[in-house]
């Protein structure tokens, strides 16, 4: 029985790693051995940095990286700024009301991005937010906010209420007790929310392709390059898109525990 499990495990691990390996191959092996061949070599026959150089020498990519960076940071900041008061309020309100509001917030998550993005793009044109990082961040926030509130809610709920009560008894007002007691204690949840929102924005495509098409973010640039036929550069850009996220995911795996995800579920 154990043997079968181990065989399954090995197959599964190959399944997990193979696509990442392919990405590595296409990025670092000269194209004549990979995508320009009828049947590409499965092993790195030669290594080269020329695909990467091609990407780095492309001014469009530098601008796209900057746009993505700008947008993602904004999304993270707004997520935390809106998420903390929201989660705090939710943690204090009676359960039925908190439950209803959480449901509303998650209903937001349910709206298909493409449905929302179409009118938002048209409206943004009129108010001058079209193609801007701020406009895009405000739209992408829709994906980040419910999750952030949920995580922070779990964080706040796991802080013993006595600590805050103690601070109030000692004479601190509402805001002081929040800033000086709760937020430092919730530090990890806040960092996790910021990073998670940042990652969600960095990857995001649907809003980006509709709201910021002229000066695109990196995912949109990759898409544009695949449709315009230059798949090699698209692969090199993809590497730049992936590395920060892979690093952050490994960092965050301590925070992506079931506990945080199930935080708001504590009944």
């Amino acid at each position, binding site marked *: 029985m154990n043997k079968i*499990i*181990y065989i399954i*495990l090995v197959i599964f*691990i190959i*399944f*997990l790693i193979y*696509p*990442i390996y*392919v*990405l590595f191959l*296409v990025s670092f092996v000269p194209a004549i051995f*990979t*995508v320009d061949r*009828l*049947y*590409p070599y*499965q092993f790195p026959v030669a290594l080269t940095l020329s695909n990467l150089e091609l990407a780095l020498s492309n001014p469009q990519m530098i601008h796209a990286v900057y746009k993505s960076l700008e947008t993602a940071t904004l999304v993270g900041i707004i997520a935390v700024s809106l998420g903390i*008061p*929201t989660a*705090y309020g939710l943690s*204090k*309100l009676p359960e039925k009301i908190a439950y209803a*509001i959480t*449901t*509303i917030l998650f209903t*937001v998550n*349910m*709206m*298909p991005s*493409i*449905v*929302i993005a*179409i*009118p*938002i793009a048209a409206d943004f044109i009129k108010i001058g937010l079209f193609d801007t990082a701020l406009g895009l961040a405000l739209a992408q*926030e*829709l994906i980040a*906010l419910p999750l952030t*509130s949920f995580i922070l809610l779990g964080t706040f709920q796991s802080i013993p209420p006595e600590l805050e009560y103690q601070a109030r008894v000692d004479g601190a007002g509402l805001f002081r007790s929040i800033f000086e007691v709760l937020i430092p204690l919730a530090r990890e949840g806040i960092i996790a929310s910021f990073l998670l929102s940042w990652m969600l924005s960095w*990857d995001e*495509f649907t809003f980006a*392709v*509709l709201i910021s098409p002229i000066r695109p973010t990196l*995912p949109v640039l*990759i*898409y544009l390059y*695949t449709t315009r036929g230059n*798949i090699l550069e*698209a*692969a090199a850009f*993809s590497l730049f*898109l992936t590395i920060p*996220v892979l690093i952050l995911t*490994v960092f965050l*795996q301590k925070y*992506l525990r*079931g506990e945080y*995800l*199930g935080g708001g*579920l504590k009944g």
Partner: protein
Amino acid sequence: MSAIKRENVSFFLFILPALIYVTVFSFYPAAEVVWLSFHSPVSNSLTLSNFKALIYFGLPQAILYTVIVVVGALSFQLFLGMGVASLIVSKVKGYRALYILALLPYGIATVVNAVDFSFIFQPTGGFANGILKAIGLPTVNWYSGTPLELFIVILADSWRNFPVFMLLMLAGYASIPRELYEAASVDGAGVVRRFFEITLPNLKKYIAIALIIRGISEFNIFALPLILIGYSPPLLTTLTYEFYSTTVTKYYSYAAATILLAFIIVFIVIVLKLGGGGRR
């Protein structure tokens, strides 16, 4: 007003900014889309002409294919997520490494995932055919028909997204008291019975949440099919974008978007009913 009620109001004020934001940026545009889908640029009255035109352009197929992709992807991800979670929980050798490895696909951006899998499945220069050739099997043209094209979309999507199921299943496992299992094995229940009578019922709530979260994302998948298979076979999202990007036919895209919204709402209702009423 009592002190508690006054406090409640002030706590509600904390939530207000988020609620306003959500209304302005989500509910209002969604209402706009539904409203516009029943209008056309020439008349002010309600009309179904956008929907009728969509039917000519393949709306029924798009709906069918979208449903196939959603059902296929959710099943596959549930299977993978539950499987890996069970392996981790049973603390098979190297489970810590397995946990981190299994999270990696989720770190790959959807666009990168799409580009990557198109490298794997492209008819010339594709790695999948490279493997098939190397082990002596006949190569497959993965783009030769709708079933295959839908299959590679499901595969690419599930590879990337099953970690969500895995994480939620792990959370669910963590919530099951150990004593239940111990009592059951004392009573003589084997692995399979323990799974179906203890694990599954307790996981039901988590499975429902995972289905809702992932299911909505599945209805919404856009970057992946756009890059991997293009506009045909059509899914509801790619159909919407296809008509959005040609300015003359923008109203068709509103109609397609409205139908997508309708399906998602129906889906949520179904899952909630089956899962026994949401979160508690």
